[in-house]
């Protein structure tokens, strides 16, 4: 039920400037998320799509999600079961898309301290998320405004609008 926190999430480490075209390649954009998911990140990391599991997290360098407005680039990560993305910064457009689809993005200045294959947890202190490494190191992330966390809780803007409509 509580989508805000996680424990023991396996880390996939990526570099900086991961773009939307790598996340959701143009050639597969006419298909749904299942097909896009098979090819997610294949231009930068060929073992990702076949190896990713429900509850894993991506840790990346700066400017995650630069490029297109195609929200499938965020939707595909939810489809593949990613619990969150942890990076020092995001494309502003990708940031909006991710929360609109219920994908939590953690803005973590020290993200790159986290290593490939590590298991991390997420805790909240008020509206401030905090990533906890296996060695106990706590990496404080930027606070997430309540109206964005509402979308994470609801699973995205569509379920949120539906809930509001049912009033």
């Amino acid at each position: 039920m509580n989508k805000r926190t996680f424990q023991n999430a396996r880390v996939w480490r990526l570099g900086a400037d991961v773009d939307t075209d790598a996340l959701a390649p143009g050639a597969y954009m006419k298909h749904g998320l299942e097909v896009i998911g098979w090819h997610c990140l294949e231009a930068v990391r060929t073992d990702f799509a076949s190896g990713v599991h429900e509850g894993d997290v991506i840790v990346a360098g700066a400017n995650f999600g630069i490029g297109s407005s195609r929200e499938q680039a965020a939707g595909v990560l939810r489809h593949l079961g990613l619990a969150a993305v942890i990076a020092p910064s995001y494309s502003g457009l990708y940031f909006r898309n991710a929360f609109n689809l219920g994908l939590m993005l953690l803005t973590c200045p020290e993200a790159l301290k986290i290593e490939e294959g590590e298991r991390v947890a997420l805790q909240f202190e008020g509206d401030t998320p905090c990533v906890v490494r296996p060695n106990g190191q706590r990496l404080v992330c930027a606070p997430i405004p309540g109206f964005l966390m509402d979308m994470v809780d609801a699973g995205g803007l569509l379920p949120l609008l539906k809930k509001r409509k049912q009033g």
Partner: protein
Amino acid sequence: MSANMSQPQTLAQKLIARAAGRSHVAVGEVVTCNVDLAMFHDSSGPRRLKPMLDELGAQIWDTQKVVLVLDHYVPAQDADAQQIVQIARDTAKQWKLPHVIDSEGICHVVLPERGHLKPGMFCVGGDSHSPTGGAFGCYMFGIGATEMLGVCVTGQIWVQVPRTLRMHWSGRLQAGVSAKDMMLHMIGRFGMNGGQYQAVEFAGTAVQALSMAERMTLSNMSAEMGAQAGLIAADETTLSHLRSIGVAPEKLAGVEQWFTDENAECEQQNFDASALSPQVAAPHSPANTRDVGDFADVAPHIAYIGACTGAKLEDLRAAASVLKGQRVAAGVQLMVAPASAREQAQATQEGVMQILQDAGATVLPNSCGACAGYGATFPEGATVISTTARNFKGRMGPASVNVYLASPYTVAASALRGRISDARDLLA
């Protein structure tokens, strides 16, 4: 009068304040804005929006304020694309959309071409290059399909009031150097997220000297700088352009208020247009930019003049000015996909299309084409020089394709010489 009323504001603040029904907004605050116009296309639009609207049992808040453009999957190249296009056409009829532009050009070019954008408006687009509207003094930015659903249902959207990064260009561009070079230079200097999702405003004598088409190129590639919006205050160039395409004078009343107040807080960066050389962005990032002279040993197989960024009428004219009376080098394939049917018709009338075809160009449909990477793309291992906006690995073809980004002048000069070349040498 409250203290706020007299406080100087940026153009971005003024545009957002109007849309939010406020006299003043402060940088950093989150406000809800009324949307004056929402544009979406065949990929981001009906095929994604209709199922969600149906699920909600909701309708579009105001179809007069919606423009649908079919440009990504046209002409349809297979059954899947055909289905996407059909959904768009059927849905447009069902929703009784009054503004549909079907297979007549790329959204960011046809939207202003049809007079939909006027200074002072607050607009959203279902495409990342939507900041193009900023060239017309509109606050316009790109959003995803789910957020567009929110706009379609409520007519509103939230924004965090941005800081303004003022890009001040003094001097004047040399012949053969263009707005594309200015943008590649700025993206190279500040990086693909240098705009930090704030508002960029282009100003100075070199910007004021630009035509509307060139200004659109600046605003367009604000997306590659990671800005939310790329604004240019309306001036006489804007107004005379809008009058020339038939926008009624009464619709342009009051546009003089849409500028950044003299003492408004901005972060200003200064550039000298006179000193700028043509710029080229090497694979695989628009920020990977250096002077054209650094790439003299690169021999492209394909020279591509296309996209909202680089195939407007003026871009075609620029290429033709270099290629006039000549043929491209052996081993180079020149492809031209004019950004809109109207602009192509004008280029034909002016003899520009003939020059390009005589030079060996293959003319492609008025659509996003290879730039979006949704249909036909470049072959395995190709080296491409392109007027488009993005050269990400795998975007315009297999990961083995190397795309260099440049202006129409540089692409034409490179096609002619068979090596990446400086058009200034040919135009002199």
